[in-house]
């Protein structure tokens, strides 16, 4: 069915200035694509410049929204920085920001090693100055079935990998997060196999969408969002977008990943957003877009099918979840 493979037009490589962010939202409002979520946000007291609110009556008892006509409004900045899954600090989504406010991100190094011709340990300054930083507006879909739209700043993982030159033996990229009990109280909980680790197949890593993010909304990444550098893989569930990276390793074995280790029948290595492949305990066919009143249909590959479907041609996605 073709409809599922079409990408939803969020121009991921659009470069937008901050003024454009705001005027884009105004444009969408003028087109009448405003959800009752705005009214809800207003009730929640978030700082929105004179929003018009749609009447809730318009949106009651309608089926889950058809994504082709829905807005892709940016999630409010205050929301993006105050609602985080970063269990190294706490499992309380609103508790991460206060606990990470003094998180030390300078000095910071990222060791790039393994099957590469030019292994190198980069300082964070090298990464910020040595690679062209772009803005990318991506949907982020959590495996818990909520989602946001976030304007990231960063550079493609591909540009970093091109510099270090993976050897022909390399098949996967492995990532590791900082583990520091003195700054991260949640890591004292030994029910998780710290440190957080993640991985991608090399071709997934080289895809143009895969981003190493160093900022959001034009500001540098706050601690709770994975400062100073994190991965963003927008067509996969959010847990693949590993935070606060200290190590990137090229390898020929499929890397172990945190959530797959915890529950391999629930969280797979690929973790592609897929409304047809449910989590064993809950459905993935719909999601709650933060700020909206009605649930949305979840899109195949989170709406990035055109850019990434080729990576999985011929693969049984119910087996390789």
């Amino acid at each position, binding site marked *: 069915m073709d409809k599922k493979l079409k990408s939803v037009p969020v121009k991921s490589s659009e470069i937008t200035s901050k003024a454009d962010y705001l005027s884009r939202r105004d444009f969408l409002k003028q087109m009448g694509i405003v959800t009752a979520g705005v009214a809800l946000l207003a009730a*929640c007291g978030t700082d929105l410049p004179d929003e018009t609110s749609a009447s809730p009556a318009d949106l009651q008892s309608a089926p889950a929204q058809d994504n082709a006509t829905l807005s892709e409004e940016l999630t409010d900045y205050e929301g993006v920085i105050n609602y985080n899954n970063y269990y190294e600090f706490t499992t309380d989504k609103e508790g991460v920001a206060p606990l990470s406010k003094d998180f030390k991100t300078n000095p910071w190094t990222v060791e790039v090693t393994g099957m590469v011709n030019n292994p190198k340990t980069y300082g964070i300054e090298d990464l910020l100055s040595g690679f062209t930083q772009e803005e990318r507006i991506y949907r982020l879909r959590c495996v818990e079935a909520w989602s946001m739209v976030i304007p990231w700043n960063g550079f493609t993982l591909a540009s970093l990998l091109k510099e270090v030159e993976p050897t022909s033996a390399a098949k996967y990229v492995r990532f590791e997060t900082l583990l520091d009990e003195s700054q991260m109280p949640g890591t004292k909980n030994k029910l998780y196999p710290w440190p957080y680790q993640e991985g991608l197949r090399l071709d997934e890593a080289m895809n143009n969408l895969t981003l190493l993010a160093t900022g959001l909304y034009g500001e540098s990444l706050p601690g709770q969002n994975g400062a100073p550098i994190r991965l963003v893989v927008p067509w996969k569930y959010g847990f693949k977008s590993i935070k606060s990276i200290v190590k990137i390793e090229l390898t020929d074995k499929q890397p172990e990943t945190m959530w797959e280790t915890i529950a391999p029948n*629930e969280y797979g290595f690929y973790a592609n957003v897929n409304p047809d492949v449910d989590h064993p305990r809950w459905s993935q066919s719909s999601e709650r877009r933060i700020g909206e009143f009605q649930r949305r249909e979840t899109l195949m590959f989170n709406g990035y099918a055109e850019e990434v479907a080729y990576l999985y041609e011929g693969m049984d996605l119910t087996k390789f979840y």
Partner: protein
Amino acid sequence: MKKLKLTPLRITIHIIGIFPLAKLLFDYFNNNLTINPIQYLEQQTGLAAVTLLVLSLTTTPLRTVFNWRQPSKHRRALGLYSFFYAMLHVIIFTAIDYGFNLNLLFEATFEKRYTLVGSIAFILLLALAVTSFNWSMRKLGKNWKRLHKLIYLIAPLVIIHFAWSLKGDIFTLQGDVIKPLIYGMIVLLLLGLRLPPVKNFFVKRTKRSARA
């Protein structure tokens, strides 16, 4: 109708029962419902329901182990408060989160086990709530006690529902399992104290100390 005495315990019980609702209203008016208010409300009402359920299960052991009889009089109040929050929990899920979307609700309730277990627990709890009044006790006679023993099934179902709503595996103790684990251990303790040999041990002990 029998006149109800306004004891400190009774007042405390009702404060405990109303507190979660008061807190949610406070959060609402202070715009403290997080940016995912629907999920926050679902989680807070669920937590209130399971906490009050656990409290209602403490009343009988308090009598058998410590010979403190007053809490048992408030078992029904605690149970009904638990049901009240469970009902809010279900209404928020069905009407607000899923907007009465029958397709999504069917899938969520019957095809996905964490909501399925929750639905079963709720229906059983509903049966207990509507038969919790003196009129039903008279009408059902012996069967009333049998029916209300279902709480021993409902409590573990609720714990499993709780554990299954989080990202973790309570059976292998991995991931986000601490809260349901603690609640689960308390429920096990409270149910264990009702097992005949355990109960009899305590009852004999309190009888002996009462005679002495």
